[in-house]
């Protein structure tokens, strides 16, 4: 009797770990969640879109937010930036986005990076939904 009860639990445990892995991978690297699910075209398009938006934001000299700020809008922008996963970490390590924003286009760059992070979160959640079966295909 206990043997029968353990087998489904082990199977459920194995299947429930994939969505979490997909979610974290999709957050760390744009499109990686879809790659793990063998959605190659979608993953590639997501990777190109999000990485391009982040790189354009850096090229426009946008600001990369840091966690040690006290204003609410800065905290929200930091959360958006954090959505970029490893891209954010690389930008921080390389010291990118630290110059003061002086031009309107630099402000655009800041928004490009924040929105890229938010889009990356959406794509990671989409991959998670695909893995759990909440989304059909």
């Amino acid at each position, binding site marked *: 009797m206990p043997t029968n009860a353990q087998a489904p639990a082990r199977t459920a445990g194995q299947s429930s770990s994939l969505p979490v892995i997909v979610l974290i991978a999709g957050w760390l690297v744009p499109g990686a969640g879809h790659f793990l699910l063998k959605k190659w075209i979608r993953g590639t398009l*997501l990777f190109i*879109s999000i990485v391009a*938006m982040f790189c354009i934001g850096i090229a426009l000299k946008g600001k990369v937010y840091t966690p040690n700020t006290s204003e609410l809008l800065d905290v929200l922008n930091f959360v958006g930036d954090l959505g970029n996963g490893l891209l954010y970490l690389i930008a921080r390590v390389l010291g990118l986005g630290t110059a003061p924003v002086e031009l309107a286009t630099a402000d655009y760059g800041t928004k490009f990076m924040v929105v890229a992070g938010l*889009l990356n979160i*959406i794509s990671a959640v989409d991959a998670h939904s695909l893995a759990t079966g909440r989304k059909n295909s």
Partner: protein
Amino acid sequence: MTLTHFSAVLIFSFFTAVVFGITQRSEPRMMVRFAAFTFVIFVGGTIAASWLMWLIKH
């Protein structure tokens, strides 16, 4: 790197529309349609808002 305001709108709308299309629809045909719809709404909305601000100023 420098961008005009309009080219920034186009680039932003394009990449955002691609992500929205992929994540908000299930079938490839509907993804393309929704991405195109989102792109038009973003660009059209920006142009409409720009004219609205111009009218308010004048």
